[in-house]
Structures are given as C-alpha cells and as structure tokens.
C-alpha cells in the first residue's frame, strides 16, 4: 500500500509540475470488425479529438488473447499514461491486470466485464453498461403502457435469447423481477420460450403460441430480432398490433424502422459510443491520479416512439 501511495504521489507531482501535459492513452480493442465495438471505438476517438493534448493509440487485438497481452506490454514499454482494454477473453484478464500493475500504469477495461473485476487494484476500473438495466427498463415501460391503457390484468409471452447466454438469462430475470413488484404484479407470464435471438425462430414460436388461441396483451423479448419476429407472426395472423404491446432490446436499425411503422412499442439502447467516451474519461482521471469507482456504469437508454429519432444515427 505504501508503495502505491508513493507511486500516486509521484504521479500527482509529475502532473502538477507539467500542467495540461499531453496524455497518451493506449487502447487495445478485441476486434475491429465488430459493429458494436466499432461504434464504441469511434466514440472514444471522437471524445479524444474534442480534447486538447489527448493522444490515442488504438490497436486491434484480432480476437487473439496472446496478441492483446503483448499490446498491453508494448504500451507500458512505450510509456503511455494509461491503457484501455476491451478484453478478447474476459477470463484472461488477470495477466493484463498484473502486467499493468507491474508497469505502474492505470488500466481501464471497457464493455466486457473482466473476471477479476472485484479485485482490481485502485488504479484500474471497468466501464460498461449494467446488463441488469436493459430488461428492467423494457419491462417497466411495457408495464407503464398497460397501466396507461387502464388494464387491471395483463398476460404476456416472454421470448428469451440463447439459454446459455448471460445477457439472455439476466434480461429474463429482470422481466420476472419487475412483474413481481407491487407496481406491476398485475402482469402474468403465460409462457416463456427461447428463439435463440433469432427472428425466424421467434416468428415460428409466436405462431405456435397464437395457435393455442389464448388471449394475451404483450410480448416481452430479450432482443429486437425476436420482437420483430413476433410482430411479423402477429401481422401474418392479422392480429391488430394496437391490441398487443411488443418490446425488445438493442435499438437496431430494423427495430427503429419497425417502431417508426408503429409496430414495436419499446426497445432499449446500449450506448456504445458513451461507453467509449466513459472509458477514456476514467483513464484520463486515473492517469491524473484521481479516484474512479471500480465499476463505472454508462446507463442504458429507453427508446420509445417519443424519442426514437435521437437514436437512428447511433447504432
């Protein structure tokens, strides 16, 4: 601890002595050819351009764990002020944490939660969105729409993503937790099944549900693709979409178009660019020796017809 305090003191004096010094930040991204990660990377770059004296060195780990660790070591050797890592493998982050700690450089993980997140040293942090928010925002909005329509009871179907996927498990849990609250406990789940995130499977699933003839008021899906699949099945069966509230998560282009067409009622936006900017912010603070929370959450945003136009250019 003494050693860290000393290092921090040295760092602080260094910054004080050269006020408004140029900060050099090394960034290692898991891969460049991922749509979401590209938006995140560009958000970071845009943020840096808006600041004076912040220089980013962004590298592509090409989905290779070993290459990523080498990049981090090279950053340390070339004397960057802080490092931002979007880990290739979240279970291989201890070695990265150790390398940065040994090189006495602040480290910020972005978007993917490192396995050692709860034991990170003081000059390391994790920036992402809290997965528990997405399903909660979605279900609360569906609940609000039901209430606004004056419903005293409502039946819904739940379409889950891939059963082995953490986000799918979490979002389904969120749905169940929201409808267990006294505020929304008038909502009952008729059945929940998986579509494997897949539009075609969701379409087939919804048609199977329709064939039971059971009355329902809404469909809460773990992702937009499944929600759109359900909408297509409802349309094919000539169900009036004004009588059914359909919700998804992701705010994809297809989902926003569906919302514009008056079909999808709710989706949730994960702010990739915001995460990139947030990670840079945390890295700069740590480089200056300031304190940063171990977990920094960039909020998910609820998307409804009222604000959907703000999101069309974002993902």
């Amino acid at each position, binding site marked *: 601890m003494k050693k860290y305090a000393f290092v921090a003191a040295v760092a602080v004096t260094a910054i004080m002595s050269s006020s408004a010094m140029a900060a050099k930040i090394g960034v290692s991204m898991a891969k460049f050819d991922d749509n979401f990660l590209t938006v995140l990377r560009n958000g970071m770059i845009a943020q840096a351009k808006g600041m004076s004296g912040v220089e980013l060195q962004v590298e592509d780990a090409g989905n290779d764990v070993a290459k990523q660790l080498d990049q981090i070591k090279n950053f340390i050797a070339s004397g960057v002020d802080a490092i931002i890592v979007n880990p290739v493998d979240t279970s291989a982050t201890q070695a990265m944490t150790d390398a940065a700690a040994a090189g006495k450089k602040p480290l910020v993980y972005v978007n993917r939660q490192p396995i050692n997140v709860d034991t990170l040293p003081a000059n390391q942090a994790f920036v992402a969105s809290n997965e528990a928010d997405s399903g909660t925002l979605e279900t609360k909005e569906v609940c609000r729409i039901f209430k606004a329509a004056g419903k005293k009871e409502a039946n819904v179907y739940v379409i889950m993503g891939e059963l082995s996927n953490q986000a799918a498990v979490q979002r389904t849990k969120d749905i169940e937790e929201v409808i267990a609250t006294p505020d929304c406990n008038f909502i009952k789940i008729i059945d929940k099944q*998986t579509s494997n995130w897949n539009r075609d499977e969701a379409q087939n699933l919804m*048609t199977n549900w329709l064939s039971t003839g059971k009355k329902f008021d809404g469909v809460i899906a773990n992702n937009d693709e499944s929600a759109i699949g359900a909408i297509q099945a409802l349309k094919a069966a000539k169900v009036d979409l004004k009588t059914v509230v359909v919700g998804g998560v992701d705010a994809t282009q297809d989902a926003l178009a569906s919302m514009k067409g008056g079909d999808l009622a709710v989706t949730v936006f994960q702010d990739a660019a915001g995460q990139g900017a947030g990670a840079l912010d945390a890295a700069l603070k740590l480089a200056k020796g300031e304190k940063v929370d171990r977990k920094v959450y960039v909020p998910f945003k609820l998307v409804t017809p009222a604000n959907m136009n703000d999101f069309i250019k974002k993902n």
Partner: protein
Amino acid sequence: MAATQAGPISRESDRSLKSKFPELNVLIALVVIVATFEILGRVFMGDSFLFNTRTDVTGLFNEQRLQIIILQVSIVGIIAVGVTQVIISGGIDLSSGSVVGATAMIAMSFAQVSMVNGSPNPTAVFKGTEWLDLPVLVPLIIALGCGIIAGVTNGALVAYTRIPPFIATLGMMVTARGISKWITKGKPISFPTEAYTKIGSGMMPVVIFISIAILFHLIMTYTKYGKHSYAIGSNEEAARVSGIKVENHRILVYTIAACLAALAAVVVSSKNLTAQSGMGVMYELDAIAMAVIGGVSLSGGRGSIIGTVLGALIFGVIISGFTFMRLDAYYQEMVKGVIIVGAVVLDQWRQRSRSLRG
C-alpha cells in the same frame, strides 16, 4: 446372406404393404407422436392438440396449428430434400446451413428497397441507388449462381480429390459462414422489395417445399438420375463397372443439394424480411436429422424423399407439441435429441429384424 438364399420366393411373398410403402414405420411413428400430444394435452392442458376448441374460429381442426407444424419445417425441409439425395448417393453435406447464410446475404444485397418509411434504407449494402429496387429476378439469379458455385465446388472436391465428403463439405461450411460474416462485417441486410417479400410470405414456404418434394420424389423414382443415385450409394464400384459416370453424377448431386439450400436462403430471407450472417446455423444438422428419422440410411443406397418429408413433419409436430405443452425451454433440446437418436435406433432394429427374417 439369408436374403440371397431365400431368393425370389421371399421377395414374392413379401409383397405386403410394408415393402410397397417402406415409409410406413415413419408414418406410424408420426401418428403415435401426434396421438401422444393429443392425449397429454387432454390430460394436462385441458385442450386438444389437433382439434379446434376455440369459439372464435370455426372448423373441426386447429387449422392454425396444422399450418405452423409444416410451415416451421418447410425451409429446412427444402434443404432436407437435397441432403436426402446426397446421403442416398453415399455422401453427406454439412455445408447447407452456411450456404443458406452466405446466399441469403449475397442475394438480399440485390433485393433491397431504397426508401423505408420515407427515409433511405439504413442497411443498404450498395451506396448507389442504381443497385436498389432491382427486379426480383436479379437476386434470384444471383442466389442460383451461389448455389451452383458452392455445389460444384463440393462435388468436385469429393469426386476428384477423393477427400471424404464429411471433410470437403465441412470446409465449405466454415468458408461459406466466413463469407456471410465478411460481406457486411456482421451487419444485417434488411428491407427487401415488395416482389421479393412475396416469395416467402404466408404459406408460400410450404407450397415451395411440397412442390420441390414432389418433383424430386418423381425424379428419384422414375429417372436415370434417381436410379444411378441409389446404385452409387449402394455399391460405388459396381455402379462404376456398370458404366455410370460416378464423378459427374456426384457433382450433379451436390450441385442440386446446394441449389436447394440457395432456394431455402431466398425463402428464409424473404419470410423474415432480412438476411443476417448467422442465418441457417444448424440447418444442415436438422436437415440430416429429418432425413435419418425418415429412414434414409447414412451408409447410402436406401431412403426416399417421402420418408424425409415425414421426418420433417415429425420435427414440426415435436416443436409445436412442446410449445403446446409449455414444456420448459431448458428441457426441449434434451428431449429433441433423445427423439432423434431413438428414431434411428428403432429404425436400425427394424432393419436388422427384417434382414434376419429374410
């Protein structure tokens, strides 16, 4: 050996319903599974699986359920018709699911509209408007081209390099999936033209599946192509000696299979109004499972298109039955796996007892 000794006499006496209609076992299995869901439904759900119990619609049967049973297996069913021919001729095709993915992405790129809800198509692959709003024939011809390229490559690899079909088509499976991801770096391609959406709308996938099945049933039963396929699958050397051009035939079989996968790609992307790089994942295994459940022998030479269609229906009944019973999603895959293996084990027993009986 018993069969050869018994000779023509046994063949004469075995002209029962079973030998005229070898798919009878599969049909019985289908009926048994439907009956099981009907009984379970009456007991546990207080509802009928097959019959209409609703007051807001008319008719004896639950028509919507009958439709979805076949609709949800039609697209994989189209692939299964092709895979059946490959397996009968002694091969295997693992690439069909990935060919669906790659073809859907490529064909859909040429089937996009320029305007969506009054704003430019946000997923347009080509920037210039001259590539948008093309006539529907363009994506169809391009899809056919994709099928031919994939199929000729598969067939030529199997026929001339002599690598096992499992490996050759595994290579195509990985490569084609790579292509489908590379085209847009994983982004979906959506919003097709009006004409393109008609191909897979409503019950069209079923119409296409059944037409394709009837066509290839006739071809496999009555043409030289069909007879050669069975001959090569039963005994390749004997077929070669009797003058069949085995290499050419193999290329033709794999090309037909890949073209049917390409057709499935058009139907699935039209039905869903989108093409995505992950489309068709696992389709090849579902298609093979349908064929095998339908009595197609993985060692070649035996099976039929009718059997595969019945196998597809068993698949559809199981999926709808599970949802009807509201079986927990976590159990569904386990039970599905057990049913696939169980069907083949039963088929093997049936084969053995038949050959023992002579």
